């Protein structure tokens, strides 16, 4: 009996040991297997991931389209493809929160289904952008066409702000039509029909009073999403203090922040070069200031003094369309470079193109490199040299650094590789 018990005990002990050994073996094996399954390993880059407070040399591992690990010294042996990012910066794929990509052939229209819009893929990846937010090119009447024509066919992730005007940006006169600004229908589109794509409401190009903004905010409240306002075609200008403090809510977005066209648009910096006090107060209150560079909405005379006085935009964006693409704007990397040369740190600029816009549009899964998220990644080099940067008035600011997108990954796929850092040298391949 005792003997048997002893034997049993021994067996049990052996069993425990075996079980432990087995577990260790299995976990080691699964670890190895996991490591062998790294599809792309980005080695030795300086990772800037503001959401996760990462700012230093790290490796980034991607597996099955997702971020699997961000850590120092992930072994190369376990990766199918290794990208040497020494001397380069690695960031989450950028989010351009203000673009116009509803391209189409309505030859009478302005931006909605029209040629002032551009297809996103040709501009995004080459500047490190993986997500764009179309800023109200479509309204509830033509959003489905936009989705079918552009959103569903783009490699870039395209999200949208829905215009409070039913036909979106079809033309200036349609945009004044108060009988076509329907908050309920707009909110249904956001909340009931396309909650995965539509992230907010847009109010723009209105010549009247605050009616359009108020309708957009009404829709925003019904749908629980932010409103972006392009507020600048009033003659004489409407008060932006009233806009910021009375009409918009914390979390709503003021775009074209550094625009200068005082006859129709009240500026944030006064004629003596001082940022108006209520602008700081509005930002403190939670109003979001978006750059929205565009073809007419970024002037050094606004941006330079604002930056000097400590007023930084919350989000850096392009307002990409045909009238901005070949002018002072060019692409998001160029717009970011302007801020770097005005003294913003790269870390601050990356936050303003990743985690900040993701928060503003309430898409917490975007704009960071946390394990398990879709692998949207950008790799940049920071060029040193003598560069000029144009504003929309044809004035230039000299700078000595410029951001250039080396490699862009969208959902784990390499979609841009400027210098072939992910490619083998041709005569080494058989």
């Amino acid at each position: 009996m005792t003997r048997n018990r002893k034997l049993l005990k021994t067996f049990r002990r052996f069993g425990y040991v075996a079980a432990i050994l087995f577990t260790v073996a299995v976990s080691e094996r699964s670890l190895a297997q996991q490591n062998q399954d790294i599809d792309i390993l980005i080695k030795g880059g300086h990772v800037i991931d503001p959401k996760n407070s990462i700012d230093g040399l790290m490796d980034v591992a991607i597996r099955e389209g997702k971020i699997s690990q961000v850590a120092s010294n992930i072994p190369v042996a376990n990766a199918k493809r290794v990208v040497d990012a020494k001397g380069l910066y690695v960031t989450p794929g950028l989010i351009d929160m203000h673009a116009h990509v509803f391209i189409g052939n309505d030859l009478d229209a302005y931006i909605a289904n029209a040629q002032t819009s551009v297809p996103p893929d040709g501009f995004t990846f080459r500047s490190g952008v993986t997500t764009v937010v179309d800023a109200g090119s479509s309204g509830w009447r033509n959003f489905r066409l936009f989705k079918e024509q552009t959103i569903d066919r783009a490699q870039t992730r395209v999200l949208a702000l829905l215009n409070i005007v039913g036909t979106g940006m079809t033309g200036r006169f349609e945009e004044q039509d108060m009988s076509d600004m329907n908050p309920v229908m707009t909110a249904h589109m956001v909340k009931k029909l396309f909650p995965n794509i539509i992230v907010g409401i847009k109010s723009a190009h209105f010549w009247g009073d605050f009616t359009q903004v108020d309708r957009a905010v009404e829709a925003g409240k019904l749908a629980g999403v932010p409103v972006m306002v392009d507020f600048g075609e009033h003659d004489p200008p409407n008060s932006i203090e009233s806009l910021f403090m009375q009409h918009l809510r914390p979390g709503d977005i003021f775009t074209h922040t550094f625009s200068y066209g005082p006859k129709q648009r009240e500026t944030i910096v006064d004629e003596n070069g001082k940022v108006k006090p209520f602008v700081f107060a509005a930002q403190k209150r939670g109003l979001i200031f978006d750059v929205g560079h565009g073809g007419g909405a970024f002037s050094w005379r606004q941006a330079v003094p604002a930056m000097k006085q400590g007023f930084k935009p919350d989000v850096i964006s392009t307002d990409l369309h045909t009238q901005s693409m070949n002018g002072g704007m060019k692409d998001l990397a160029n717009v970011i470079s302007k801020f770097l040369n005005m003294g913003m740190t790269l870390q601050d600029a990356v936050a303003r193109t990743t985690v900040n816009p993701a928060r503003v549009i309430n898409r917490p899964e975007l704009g960071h490199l946390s394990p398990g998220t879709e692998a949207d990644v950008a790799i940049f080099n920071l060029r040193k040299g003598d560069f000029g940067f144009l504003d929309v008035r044809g004035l230039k600011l000299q700078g000595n650094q410029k951001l250039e997108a080396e490699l862009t990954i969208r959902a784990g796929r390499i979609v841009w590789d400027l210098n072939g850092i992910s490619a083998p040298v041709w005569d080494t391949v058989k």
Partner: protein
Amino acid sequence: MHKTFFVVTVWLVSFAFHASGQEIDLLIKNGHVIDPRNNINARMDVAITGGMIFQVAPGIAESRAKKVVDASGLYVSPGFIDIHTHVFVGTKPGFANGTSSISPDDFACRSGVTTVVDAGTSGWRNFPVFREQVINRSKTRILAFLSIGGTGLSGKSAQEDLDDMNPDSTFLMFKKYPETIVGIKIGHYEGSDWTPFDRALTAASKAGIPLFVECHLPQYSLEDQLKRMRPGDIITHSFEKVSERMSVVDEEGRVRPFVKEAQKRGILFDLGHGGAGFWFSEAVPALKQGLGPNSFGTDLHRNSVNAGMKDMMNVMSKYLAMGMKKEDVILRGTWAPARSIKREDLGNLSKGAPADVVVWSIRKGKFGFVDAGGNRIEGDQKMEAELTLREGKVVWDLNGLTAKKFEIK
């Protein structure tokens, strides 16, 4: 006597006005001008007036110009000509009036290209739509090779339809728009019947313009294609390595004799990079044996712009990396393609030519260039477009060469 005095006075006054006045709209000073058409390869100034080239000479006085651009340390060339693009952009799936095509202005201006030739995305049936929708609305000059298929690149069933390959209708469309249609294209046909090829050739002969031959003709041998082509006809995707067409070099890396023969006979080889049309394994040995591209057609479309191709200057930079001299690269980006499409008004800086000009730099550093197979070549220089002018108008200014400095008052 009185009349003579008047004439002389007017002449003197106008001369004085011109001399002291500013008859030059834009003067590009101190750049290194490379204009192969006019054998210019030296430091010169380029004066532009009324959207045209006014003068190319050293030491043109700044006082004569309304605006001066300092191009010290930079190169100045005729705007580049990309003879293989797909720009019939629209909303349909695919190329013709579709989303696989792209707007030329999105990519041309920033890479120094001022003229593109659309490579048969349209045929005689839909060319008018292309013209109205895109050609008439672009800043980039758009010319076209008309596809022998009536609806161009409108999907396989349309492209294979022999009944819709009408040389007469194709010719008539050329007669209607001779200033835009510069060639006829045959490129997509899966049968072994030579009728499509011959009809394209018939239309091209009748119009007196070149035939542009693309590779998607799997049943035609390369040798037969080249044999049927006339001197001045253009074959594209010259350095591809695909199952659809035999490579120009053999397994040992030697340019095939019949290819050399065709080159000697005056067949023109366009690069046609695209997503699959350019491989270092073919292009490097070919270049070493004297077969370089006559033109750097990019095969610009939705899928090539983010791949190894990127843009025309990137393609040109590949040849710098492969050892071609920059003067030869510029020749193949300007005058050679202009001649190949019989548009000798383009691709040069002769007095009176449209002021399509690119100011560019050579960036030094460590660069990589990728081919269609995802293989890389390394180089230490890369061309970059600083300023692009289209008929004298600034359509691209990378670093604000034409801009005033911002100053806080």
